[in-house]
């Protein structure tokens, strides 16, 4: 049996176990055990992957297998991973496990909560291990739909509105994506002259340029909606602000990465010529997104909105980097996906902890929290510094690679947009430091804050799960970068720059 299937079987068993666990406490135990196993499986996968590569296996995808599904239509369930998907799988496992710990206190319909949460994660895992368009699309939708219930039932604020908006916008994105994917299928041909959904076979056969021009925008926008492509990002702030903590974590940390990964693996890998032709248009969109969302974050007073806009800005940077179509920037894009996934999940976790204690998310209403909540506040500062790209933390490596890669383009257009995008870093520093200053420093605003309880063990576990990789990535970025760079070779070859 393919070991990648474990990544689907463990969550499936966990969901099965959850269905039979009633009460308030049992579900979270089951979820924690299941997701810890999943985390272990993901770690094992990384080791096994590195071992294979060290042993000199240079195939594009490792651990591949192919299961027949609908034989007359040549629809198969094809599995396989490369360095990029392995690292994203590890990210997903970390964030999911942390999310389970952060949700330790969910007691209203606890069973249903964890079932939905893990179904969402299953969709994400399935997406990352699939290398055929049909399964990718299936898992993509599977990951989106539990969001509706998660935000709608356990969310706060205008939760019904946010849930509906998010679901419909993402589903509309996936609808356009479906047109693009079917188009790819009917213009593809494998060695046996059949249509195919398999990524590698499509790439080998190539897609005619006229078809690329038609389907590249559909596919890119389809995935881009989930990656918060401007102007289709509006679901994100509302959705994140209303979602319960763990869902914001998973959504911003992992689900939005599906968009970036899809743009990169499907849109650009399969349609490189059209990507090169049309990248200018999307560079303008994503470049504006980076600046626009960052400035928007300054204006927000609600912590979740600040972080949501910051996520949009950072995810915009991922798409921006992908569109640069060269090795350095693409490496940076993947690093940014991972770094942002960890960072934003950590932010949302911390915001959740703060809100549970102070019952407010408005920055101005808090103050001096560093004195009363030292652990949470200190971690908040670290996450903030990572977010604004301080050297030694993960954000620096990612952003540096992106901007160096983007600046490699000699023409004016690319350079101007790169400079504009770089300026967003300064804006990021403004909103991060302002929050840190107002909320954490200074005198204690409310006397009641002095009695706030510090972080509980499950909160600490969740936060540490996220902060260790952030620091690790910042100090030792090279093994990750190597792993990614090696996996970019097929893509770069398709683009004609490798």
């Amino acid at each position, binding site marked *: 049996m393919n070991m990648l299937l474990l990544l689907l079987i463990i969550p499936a068993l966990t969901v099965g176990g959850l269905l039979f666990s009633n009460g308030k406490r049992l579900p979270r135990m089951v979820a924690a055990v299941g997701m810890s196993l999943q985390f272990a499986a993901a770690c094992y996968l990384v080791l096994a992957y590195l071992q294979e590569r060290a042993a000199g296996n240079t195939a594009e995808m490792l651990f591949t297998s192919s299961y*027949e*599904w*609908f*034989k*007359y*239509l040549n*629809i198969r369930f094809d599995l396989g991973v490369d360095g990029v998907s392995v690292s994203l799988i590890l990210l997903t496992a970390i964030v999911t496990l942390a999310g389970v710990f952060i949700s330790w206190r969910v007691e209203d319909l606890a069973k249903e909560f964890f079932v939905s949460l893990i179904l969402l994660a299953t969709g994400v895992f399935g997406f990352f291990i699939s290398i055929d368009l*049909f399964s990718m699309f*299936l*898992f993509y*939708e*599977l990951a989106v*739909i539990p969001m*509706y*219930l998660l935000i*709608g*039932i356990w969310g706060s604020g205008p*939760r*019904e509105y946010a*849930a*509906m908006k998010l*679901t*419909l916008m993402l*589903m*509309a994105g996936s*609808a*356009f994506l*479906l*047109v693009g994917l*079917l*188009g790819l*299928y*009917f213009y593809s041909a494998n060695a046996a002259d059949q249509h195919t959904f398999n990524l590698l076979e499509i790439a080998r056969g190539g897609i005619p340029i006229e078809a690329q021009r*038609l389907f590249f925008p559909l596919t890119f926008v389809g995935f881009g909606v989930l990656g918060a492509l401007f102007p289709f990002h509006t679901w994100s702030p509302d959705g994140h602000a209303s979602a319960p903590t763990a869902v914001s974590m998973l959504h911003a940390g992992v689900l939005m990465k599906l968009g970036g990964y899809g743009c990169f693996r499907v849109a650009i890998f399969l349609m490189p010529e059209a990507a090169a032709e049309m990248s200018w248009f999307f560079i303008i969109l994503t470049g504006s997104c980076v600046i626009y969302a960052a400035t928007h974050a300054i204006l927000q007073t609600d912590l979740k909105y600040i972080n949501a806009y910051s996520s949009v800005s950072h995810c915009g940077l991922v798409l921006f980097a992908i569109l640069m179509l060269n090795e350095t920037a693409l490496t940076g894009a993947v690093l940014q996906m991972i770094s942002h996934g960890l960072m934003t999940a950590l932010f949302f976790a911390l915001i959740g902890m703060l809100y549970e204690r102070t019952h407010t998310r408005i920055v101005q209403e808090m103050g001096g929290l560093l004195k009363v909540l030292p652990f949470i506040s200190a971690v908040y500062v670290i996450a903030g510094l990572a977010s604004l790209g301080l050297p030694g933390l993960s954000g620096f490596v990612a952003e540096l690679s992106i901007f160096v890669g983007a600046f490699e383009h000699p023409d004016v257009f690319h350079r101007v947009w790169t400079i504009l995008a770089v300026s967003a870093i300064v804006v990021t520093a403004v909103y991060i430091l302002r929050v840190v200053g107002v909320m954490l420093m200074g005198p204690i605003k409310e006397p009641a804050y002095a009695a706030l309880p510090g972080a509980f063990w499950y909160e600490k576990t969740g936060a540490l799960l996220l902060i260790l990789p952030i620091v690790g990535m910042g100090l030792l970025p090279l093994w990750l970068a190597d792993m990614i760079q090696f996996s970019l070779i097929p893509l770069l070859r398709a683009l004609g720059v490798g």
Partner: protein
Amino acid sequence: MKWDDLLLMRHELQLLAVILIVTCAEIYLSGRDKSRIIPLSLALFGIHMAAGWLWPAEGELFGGMYRTNGLIHLMKNILDVGVLIVLLQTGGWARKQLVPENRASEFFLLIWSSLLGMYYMVSAGDLLMVFLGLELSTLPVAALAAYEVLKMRSAEAGIKFILTAGLASAVTLMGISLLYGSTGTFVLADLGKQMQGNSLEALGFLFFFAGIAFKISLVPFHFWTPDVYEGAPISVAAYLSVISKGAAVFILMILLMGFAPLLTDLWVNVLYLLAILTMTIGNLFALRQRNLKRLLAYSAVAQAGFIMLGFMSSQQDGKASIVYFMLVYLFSNLAAFGVVQTIELHTGKEDMSDYEGLYRTNPRLSLVMLLALFSLAGIPPLAGFFGKFFLFMTVASAGYYLLLTIAVINTVISLYYYLLIVRAMFLRKSDNPLPLVTSDGWMRAGLVICVAGIVVLGVASGVYDAIYALCAHL
């Protein structure tokens, strides 16, 4: 003709036997034992349904008036499964309301007569046979729609149905006579050969098509749908939305793809347009509905538009996607109707606002509804996703990317109103939610079958592959 040849009509003969046995039972059972008719009917029909799957045969009878083959056999079986579920879901209602009034067996007999008409329609090798089948399948339904005679709405539904159905029949007949006038034959196999593709035939075809479109409730022939669904007993609405529509879709597929080669360009264009209209108008009207029966009615209209997508390609994939989608749609829609029926039967409520907070009091029913709605909306990994996906593939294979785009946008619109029901059941909390409803055993069995279908049909690819293989010849 040998006597064994009659075995080709096994489905029809079996059903006739069931009808006769239940009629005799109705005559001989005395008043107090009348309630036994329900289990008897269900058991007999269950046996009929199971036996129907055995020994598919291929051949013709009566000089080609009646024909059958593997695919037609499968279509009848699909209809059987649907009717069985409808009858299971009717069981509780029949016991509660019909048995005391001594009208239970007629209900079953009428449904079966209509089903018998559908068998003949699907098996027809001749336009007259199509028409006879169509009439036999329609008339009993008018009686069924008006079955709750004391309710004004039910009577109104009956009248509306019989009037529109009568009009549709007249139009169909007109179309048939024009086709006959041009080609000089009723026999389908000859019809294709005799056609010259002139405008008289085109007109005849359009008339004929309009009649069938009434049954499928394609826009602009859909106006009866919401009113009849709302007024008729829910089982009848379920029957209309799945079985009646299914049979009409099947016969349309057989006629268009099998016997009208010269008119292909014409009907592909007509259906292209009608698919867009039906999906869009059905969905837009569904958005504003707050009564669940009306909402499901408009959703059924919209789904009919999706089914038409399968007609865009006459190849094997087109046929297979239609038959497969009908099968999937049957389970999904009947599950939704089953839940609405259960709640209506026990509480009399059928408005969306009544469903608020349903999950907290009736978790199981809500979950069934959730699965049914998600399947109707086409969410993976439920069967509805695969059904829609294959329809979309058919459209893409024919190269109609514009139609495909409109269709996928429509799935998003439909998701909105399905989510409204989910929102009421799961997201909202209500101060006085519906009490715990305990459904009867029959209904439970029906819902379990539906859920099994919704969950298994898609992922288990064998079903689609089998249908695909059968669609090789019509």
